[in-house]
């Protein structure tokens, strides 16, 4: 290789500059310096401007009591709790609904894609219509339609739909299911005093289930004999806990808490608000259409010959799907699924439009009450970013595991 510096016409500074490596290093340094300057300058300006306006960020307000009341919460919270706790309440609401949406939309998406790739013309077209319609409606519209046109149109609490209506001794009207535009109240088992004993039975049942699973997987490794591990361990758990329940004398460890109509709302039992359910169902519908398409991309990415070969070996269509096609389809489907799941946590922020107290909604309240817009927006950005990065990391780990290992 002829070095540029050895050329007599290209010595000195000029020659140095004509060396591609030196030149690219120079440009990169200049570019980097520019970026650093930009960042420092911008940050300096922001701080200076904010100081001038008395808006300098400080997070001390997070420890002050919030004075707000949240309608739906997974942990204890009242007006005396701190702003930080309010953020946590919102975060938990967001995470809880996101997790359920991801699980439910995966199942629904799987069902839709099975219809979509079905050889039945009608079923396949219906699935296609579903995907195209849902995918092309803005999510906010979907939520508003669901909330306004469906939930708000249900009968009021006074004329609610009730199942197994009963009147208690106190003259209260109860039912195992109360459906109104307030949402759904369901009879729900709650632990009684006897639960303190019963929980040892449950722990024992869990131990038996784990042991079953361990035994079955050990046997698989030893003999290669496959068996439905999850099914057997679930059965073991149910059997032990059921026998325990029958053997216990006296008061049962659970009692069904029946929702009763109060003056304004029903109380007791499990309560699913219209807002929660609107957001949940809207998100599940919307996400499932995308999930179905990601699955379809995966399934169609598997060469047709694979399925044909499996069928030729006498393997049934469903078994061939499960053992041959889906393991290979997963590899293709996971990266797009990751992006879809990342979107879910962010999309829950639209709950603010229909009155669901998610992270974003509660943040808005705190901003209004404290005026600390900049701090809260930064905090919320950081939280959403962390949620996304965690989801992404989890999906990457899974992706690595299912990836074909080339040897």
């Amino acid at each position, binding site marked *: 290789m002829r070095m540029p510096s050895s050329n007599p016409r290209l010595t000195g500074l000029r020659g140095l500059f004509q060396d591609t490596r030196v*030149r690219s290093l120079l*440009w990169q340094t*200049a*570019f980097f310096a*520019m970026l650093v*300057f*930009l960042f420092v*300058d*911008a940050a300096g*300006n922001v701080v*200076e*401007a904010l100081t*001038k*306006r*008395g*808006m300098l960020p400080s997070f001390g307000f997070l420890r002050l009591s919030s*004075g*707000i*009341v*949240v*309608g739906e919460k997974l942990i204890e919270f*009242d*007006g005396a709790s701190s702003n930080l706790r309010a953020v946590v309440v919102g975060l938990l609401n967001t995470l809880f609904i996101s997790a359920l949406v991801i699980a439910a939309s995966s199942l629904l998406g799987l069902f839709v894609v099975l219809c979509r790739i079905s050889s039945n013309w009608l079923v396949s077209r219906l699935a296609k219509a579903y995907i195209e319609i849902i995918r092309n409606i803005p999510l906010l519209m979907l939520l*508003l339609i669901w909330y*306004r046109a469906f939930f*708000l*149109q249900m009968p*009021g*609490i006074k004329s609610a739909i009730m199942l197994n209506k009963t009147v208690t001794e106190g003259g209260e009207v109860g039912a195992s299911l109360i459906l109104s*535009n*307030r949402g759904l109240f369901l009879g729900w088992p709650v632990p009684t005093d006897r639960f303190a004993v019963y929980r040892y039975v449950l722990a024992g049942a869990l131990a038996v289930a784990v042991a079953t699973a361990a035994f079955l997987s050990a046997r698989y490794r030893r003999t290669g004999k496959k068996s439905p591990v999850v099914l057997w361990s679930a059965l073991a758990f149910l059997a032990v806990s059921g026998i325990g329940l029958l053997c216990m004398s006296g008061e049962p460890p659970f009692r069904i808490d029946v929702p009763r109509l*109060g*003056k*304004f*709302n029903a*109380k007791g039992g499990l309560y699913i608000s*219209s*807002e929660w359910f609107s957001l949940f169902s809207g998100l599940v519908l919307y996400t499932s259409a995308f999930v179905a398409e990601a699955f379809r991309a995966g399934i169609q990415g598997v060469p047709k010959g694979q399925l044909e070969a499996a069928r030729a070996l006498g393997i049934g269509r469903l078994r061939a799907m499960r053992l041959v096609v889906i393991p290979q389809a997963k590899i293709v489907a996971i990266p797009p699924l990751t992006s879809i799941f990342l979107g879910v946590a962010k999309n829950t922020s639209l709950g*603010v*439009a*229909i*009155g669901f*107290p998610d992270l974003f*909604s509660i943040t*808005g*309240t705190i*901003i*209004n*009450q*404290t*005026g600390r*817009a*900049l701090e809260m927006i930064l905090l919320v950005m950081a939280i959403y970013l962390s949620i996304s990065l965690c989801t992404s990391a989890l999906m990457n780990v899974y992706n690595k595991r299912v990836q074909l290992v080339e040897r």
Partner: protein
Amino acid sequence: MKRIAWVLVLFSVLTVSVFAQPKQGSTLEAVRKRGYLIAGVNSSNAGWAYLKSNGSYEGFEIELAKALATAIFNDPSKVQYRPLTSKERFTALQTGEIDVLIRTATFTLTRDTDLALNFTTPYFYDGQSFLVRKDSGVKTIDDLDGATIAVLTGSTGEITLSDIMAARGLKYKPLLFESLEELKNAFFAGRADAWTSDKSSLAATASSYPNAKDYVTLEATVSKEPLAMAVRHGDDGWYDIVQWTLYALFLGEEKGITSANVDKIKASSKDPEIQAFLGVKDALGQKLGLSPSWAYDVIKKVGNYEEVFNRYLGPGTIFNITRGLSVPWTKGGLLYSPPFK
């Protein structure tokens, strides 16, 4: 290499434009130079400030902005309205996006200090109450134990609600909405038992609803909601202009000067304060950096407080809002203008 050079040029331009130092100088100068005032307002509060289908703004608060534009430019139309949600409003003012905030903002100590704002004297003394269905049997706040209560997020009402319910040991379920539209939809569909807000807003909204007579506002007023205009800290001259323009509206009503009789009064009045007020003698306007006839212009082109109020909220309108304490001190109210001397 050429491409990289372009990138560098682009970045330097960005540095200069985006990260340039915030401009110095008085707000009045900036407004004059721009040629119009930028006012932060509501766009969906019927009677107070709302966007009409033809794209223009109307309402009591809009008239206040027009009065301010008249004081500066002698032209009520020199205003650009910025529709803001209650969540955005203070940030918009702090960052200098608007010159003045006239958006049913309650004057509180925290907002005055923590947000580095200056509030004028209140232009309306409001108070929070509850709207309920007549057939719900709710007469007092104590009847609301266990109720679902709809409230707009981002309002002082949200805090007041939790405070008064806590003070009385009452339980309730809040239902928070960001937009008034969604709140109204849910409330009138029976999703909530009560809706809490300032009395004026409740009256204004309920009256525009077809089954208005099925609903009633509770007697009790549970909070003080002095609605005031706000400007940023650090420009006292600008604050004076906003404050004294409001006083001009107050004094107009107090002295009975209306847009109809202002010319006659200007020509004939012997009252030295009225003479100073209308710029006949003592060019008071110049002390504010305005024209000598600024107050005359405001009364002539916009009207006094009573005229402005009656135009959008008074007895002739569907809202017919009770003025309560928002009448001149001479009639036992709290509207009191310091002397124009």
